[in-house]
């Protein structure tokens, strides 16, 4: 049973990927993708129902050697890519990985054998659910999207197979990454995701795509280098394979004085993958790729691997300065990128900045390192994956309707594509408003932030900025002319199924989060840090038990009345939307000082010399204050400084 489940989670995507690569027929390929997706989803639910397991592949096949060989294959691919793209940075950071790895294997003659090789605890189960369910939906979406994408680009030779191959492979690598207990295997899966990421970003083969893919590659390769160094450090100072077991590292099985250096290096690796400042540019560059790539990178894979690693290691750095430093690095990223998001005129870049901001928040929660904040981090991972996955799929659908990614071109989308606008609007509202899950996570984070007051102040400022950029964008979508009865647009099932599933998911999981927390997420939290002061009372509310700041004993610290808040949302928005109707006779044109030219269906007015002129409205972007040019030098300098302090904390704490 366990054999089969592990094989499906990690190896099925590989097999299915190769199958997809050879199938040239659109429908046959689609069927394979849908089947793989369904099996992966069912398998992840099986993992959830089975609970924690440990697993070591049966002896008889030398998986360790295979992984070593593949490690070199990946790193040599980096070298070849570096030469082909003539990119010095890619070459350098490929070399800084391959040389230490060779040293580790051949000079030190390291023999690594960790048992169990895989540990699937509740945290890993949460991750695999996110990866398999949301990742699979994105793969289904990509089937149709890539066909439309190629039709629009007028390609001679279809490259859809190649695209779907890397997309499906990504899911397998992510599953391996979250299950792996052997640090060397974890490193392998880590590099596979980096490679998949490069291949997907560079998919369109344009100059800009190649350039941005190369940047993603070298930035992540610096993380890979730190990973290798951490492995060598652990192996030499602890002398043996047992030091390379993740469970040993976090379980206190290793003398902690020397531990912080490798842990700090691994946290740096997590920061590169999670695109924390100053590495945000690779994730922004990744926006040139077709939208399913962005959806996958931002919601369920890649960046989530970065925060997963940092959360996973949380017990290893609990109570140290390193922990505080991580909270501040994450908090600062949350603040900086939320400000930068306001200045963005391209929809996908706003989404990207918002992702980085939320990853910063998750990172900060890991750094705050209390049961409350870790629970917030896990909840944020889940809800962010749902909402952001949905928003990227919406962005892709919008792009295929108006063939633009610019926010200003989306003006009045509510009239052109009401269904997609509705889904997008709910997706956006779910990112920052009560009663939705993201806000629940942010609420717990704020309630937990007292331990690192500087991070708390970053959270406060960033939350306010978050409201501005979402509302601003939403306002552009919803601006309409006085007209009634918009015709609904048609969506192909490959678009509609993922969109509506995620849309419903926001409500179902958001509304049912109290029992889900109780039965499931609480266990994931206690896999990281013992103790739990979140009490879910039925379906109604989530209550935080009193804290221990030496205050006069407070019965409860805070309460989030889920049931009541959803009721308020229903009364406030859904009731009037469903039951309120206007009559055509009640409509009037907007006020234009009496200079409008006609009825409700025109936006022309009489300009100078009574010439009919269409009037134009635009959004505010504050480029001078929070634009990339104005802000980047400052925030990047501070971010580099903070990152240096973070690693420094690992070194001096011993």
């Amino acid at each position, binding site marked *: 049973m366990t054999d089969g489940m592990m094989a499906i989670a990690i190896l099925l995507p590989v097999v299915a990927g190769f199958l997809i690569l050879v199938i040239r027929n659109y429908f046959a390929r689609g069927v394979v993708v849908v089947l793989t997706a369904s099996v992966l989803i069912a398998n992840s639910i099986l993992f959830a129902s089975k609970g924690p397991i440990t697993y070591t592949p049966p002896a008889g096949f030398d998986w360790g050697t295979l992984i070593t060989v593949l490690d070199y294959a990946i790193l040599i691919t980096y070298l070849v890519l570096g030469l082909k793209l003539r990119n010095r940075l890619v070459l350098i950071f490929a070399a800084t990985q391959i040389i230490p790895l060779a040293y580790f294997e051949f000079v030190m003659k390291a023999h690594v054998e960790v048992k169990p090789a895989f540990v699937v605890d509740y945290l890993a189960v949460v991750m695999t659910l996110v990866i398999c369910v949301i990742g699979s939906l994105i793969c289904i979406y990509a089937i149709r999207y890539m066909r439309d994408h190629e039709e629009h680009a007028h390609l001679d030779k279809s490259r859809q197979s190649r695209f779907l191959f890397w997309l499906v492979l990504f899911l397998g690598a992510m599953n391996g990454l979250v299950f792996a207990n052997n640090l060397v295997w974890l490193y392998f899966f880590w590099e596979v995701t980096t490679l998949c990421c490069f291949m997907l970003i560079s998919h369109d083969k344009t100059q800009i795509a190649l350039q941005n893919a190369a940047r993603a590659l070298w930035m992540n390769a610096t993380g890979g280098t730190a990973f290798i160094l951490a492995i060598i450090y652990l192996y030499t100072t602890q002398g043996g394979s047992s030091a390379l077991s993740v469970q040993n590292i976090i379980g206190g099985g290793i003398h902690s004085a020397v531990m912080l250096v490798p842990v700090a290096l691994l946290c740096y690796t997590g920061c590169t993958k999670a695109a924390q400042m100053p590495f945000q540019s690779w994730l922004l560059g990744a926006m040139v790729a077709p939208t399913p790539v962005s959806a996958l990178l931002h919601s369920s894979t890649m960046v989530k691997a970065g925060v997963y690693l940092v959360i996973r290691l949380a017990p290893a750095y609990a109570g140290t300065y390193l922990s505080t430093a991580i909270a501040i690095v994450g908090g600062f990223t949350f603040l900086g990128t939320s400000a930068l998001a306001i200045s963005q005129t391209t929809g996908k870049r706003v989404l990207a900045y918002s992702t980085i901001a939320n990853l910063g928040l998750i990172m900060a929660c890991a750094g705050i390192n209390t049961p409350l904040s870790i629970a917030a981090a896990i909840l944020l991972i889940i809800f962010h994956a749902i909402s952001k996955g949905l928003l990227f799929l919406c962005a892709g659908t919008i792009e295929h309707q108006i063939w633009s990614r610019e926010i200003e071109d989306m003006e009045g989308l509510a009239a052109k594509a009401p269904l997609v606008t509705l889904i997008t609007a709910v997706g956006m509202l779910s990112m920052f408003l009560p009663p939705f899950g993201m806000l629940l996570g942010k609420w717990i984070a704020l309630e937990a932030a007292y331990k690192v007051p500087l991070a708390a102040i970053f959270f406060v400022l960033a939350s*306010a900025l978050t*409201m501005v950029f979402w509302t601003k964008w939403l306002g552009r979508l919803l601006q309409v002319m006085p007209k009634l009865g918009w015709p609904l647009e048609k969506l192909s099932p490959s678009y509609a199924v993922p969109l509506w599933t995620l849309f419903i998911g926001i409500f179902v999981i958001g509304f049912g989060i109290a029992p889900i927390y109780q039965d499931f997420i609480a266990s994931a939290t206690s896999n990281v840090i013992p103790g739990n002061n979140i009490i879910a009372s039925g379906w109604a509310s989530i209550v935080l038990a009193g804290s221990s700041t030496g205050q006069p004993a407070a019965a409860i610290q805070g309460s989030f009345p889920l049931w009541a*808040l959803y009721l308020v949302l229903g009364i*406030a928005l859904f009731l009037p939307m469903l039951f309120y109707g*206007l009559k055509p006779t009640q409509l009037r044109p907007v006020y234009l000082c009496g200079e409008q030219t006609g009825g409700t269906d025109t936006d022309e007015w009489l300009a100078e010399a009574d010439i009919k002129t269409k009037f134009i409205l635009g959004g505010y972007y504050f480029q001078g204050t929070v634009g990339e040019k104005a802000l980047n030098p400052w925030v990047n300098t501070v971010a580099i400084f903070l990152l240096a302090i973070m690693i420094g904390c690992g070194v001096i704490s011993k």
Partner: protein
Amino acid sequence: MNQFITVIATIVLAPIVGGLLFGIDRRITARLQGRFGPPIMQPFYDFFKLLGKESIAVSKMQFVWIYSYLVLMIASLVCLVLQSDFLVLVFLLGFAGVSLVLGGFSTKSPYSHFGANRELLQILAYEPVLLLLAIGIYAQNGTFMVSTILSRQEPLLLSLWPLFIAVLYVLTIKMRKSPFDLATSHHAHQEIVKGITTEYSGSYLALYHLAEWYEIVLVLGVIVLFWANPIWIGLLIAFAAFLLELVVDNITARMTARWMVRLSWSVGLILGIINIAYLYIMKGVF
């Protein structure tokens, strides 16, 4: 059952208090400007007159958003009277603000857009101050629950006075008083048409005014929290703050939105941060 009665009483009584406060506001402002001014009950006369007008609109969503502005404002106030979580209260207030802004954005009207953009900047200016207040309350009480503030004997004002000053800013912004009456103003002489409410008329405008009445009760209610025991001192402080706003309103002119955000993000936040830092050092968290 008790809670149910409290909620109903709040929903009924708050707009009466809010409307009366606006009546007092108009009377005092008139006197300050050398006019006689309308009767105290004038806001109610206006309200019922608006309700009786023919309802015309420029889009359906406009109604949805202004109505949700009202509902969310009531929800936020209910959060206060039920002595619930202060952070949830602030989030609901934020949602209400977002609803109002989206109402402004949901038509293709230049004046309404002006107002909506400025209202958004107003949210940016006051939201962090309120969240900092929440953290200040936590630093003092060890909980975010309003119930603990009310049961506490020592008033918050003594330890949170810098945040109190910052909250007075919020009061000016929320009451739409000069120098922060950017989105829409009560004074005609400095207004671009009618800002964010330009496109509302008749019963829709009445809804907006109703929401404003709830809003002023809510914000003054937050000020009462600074001296909750005995509560009459808190009420006096809140009324004094209200009168202070009227004076400030009449001796200043509208400033730019940029200036407002800068001021609130510098002075307001510095006050809040110093306050919280002091509390943390005193509690020995560091």
